[in-house]
């Protein structure tokens, strides 16, 4: 098989390919640690306002659509699978299959953003908005607008990460379809995957914290 002979790409300043790969992953994990700290601020503000207005947060949370939230959770978890499988196949000399799986993940990202768009449109229509833009008459309580400030800021920041992830996966997916990756060269697939998994991780916590406070059947 021709791909078996394809060499690794060792940069001149590294002594061994394993050292280079370790450095590449280390850089990505440092970046991901930074991302965790960015979202730490968001989760802390959530904790603060939820402790200040525990009952209002429950009532406000009931205005989120659990079905759509659950659907998006399943979509994002499944997209993490396709990204992990893309790395698996890139590592086993199946670059084009890896590319198709990366595009399946991008498609999942599109579904996620579409569902989010439907949710946002619904909130906009009802006036369930942050701060002074909150106009919903059905729930007039201190803290109600703060729930939606936290909701829009946390899900908006997350959605921005989904968009960036979709861009990165598209870029790596195109390269994979050109048969660039093989067992000795698949780090871009791995690093893009790590980023996408982080996006999934954040949603794993946002979902119960926002949607499941007091769901109604």
């Amino acid at each position: 098989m021709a791909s078996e002979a394809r060499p690794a790409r060792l940069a001149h300043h590294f002594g061994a390919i394993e050292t280079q790969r370790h450095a590449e992953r280390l850089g990505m994990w440092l970046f991901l640690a930074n991302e965790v700290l960015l979202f730490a601020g968001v989760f802390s503000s959530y904790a603060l306002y939820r402790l200040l207005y525990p009952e209002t947060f429950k009532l406000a949370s009931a205005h989120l659509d659990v079905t759509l939230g659950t659907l998006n959770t399943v979509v994002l978890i499944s997209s993490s699978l396709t990204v992990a499988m893309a790395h698996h196949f890139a590592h086993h000399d199946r670059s084009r299959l890896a590319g198709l799986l990366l595009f399946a993940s991008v498609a999942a990202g599109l579904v996620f953003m579409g569902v989010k768009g439907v949710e946002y449109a619904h909130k906009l229509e009802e006036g369930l908005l942050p701060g002074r833009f909150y106009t919903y008459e059905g729930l007039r309580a201190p803290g109600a607008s703060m729930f939606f400030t936290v909701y829009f800021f946390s899900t908006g920041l997350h959605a921005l990460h989904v968009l960036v992830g979709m861009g990165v996966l598209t870029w790596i997916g195109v390269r994979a379809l050109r048969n660039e990756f093989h067992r000795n060269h698949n780090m871009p697939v791995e690093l893009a995957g790590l980023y996408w998994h982080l996006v999934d991780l954040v949603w794993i916590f946002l979902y119960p914290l926002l949607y499941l406070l007091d769901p109604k059947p």
Partner: protein
Amino acid sequence: MSIAKRIHEAPGAAATLISLLALLLLTVATTGIAFLSLGPVAGELVAMAIAVTKAAIVVAVFMHLADESLLMRTIALGAVAWMLVLGAGVIAELLTR
């Protein structure tokens, strides 16, 4: 000795599929339990325990941190530790007003 202690592998197909199944089952579990109204403390503890379990599966299998060097595991755990310090500070400030 190389700082990369072993040949780095991609996650296996079987482990990845089993993880997906576990993640989907845990999603169903956390959603179902939320409708049971366990009470504010118990409900929150169960929801967070399930979320942490799901996160651990993603990190260990999909992100294969379990196979990484001690340095990388320390960075990941360090980020979580700093996040908890920030959260604890915010909550402590609120509870001692």
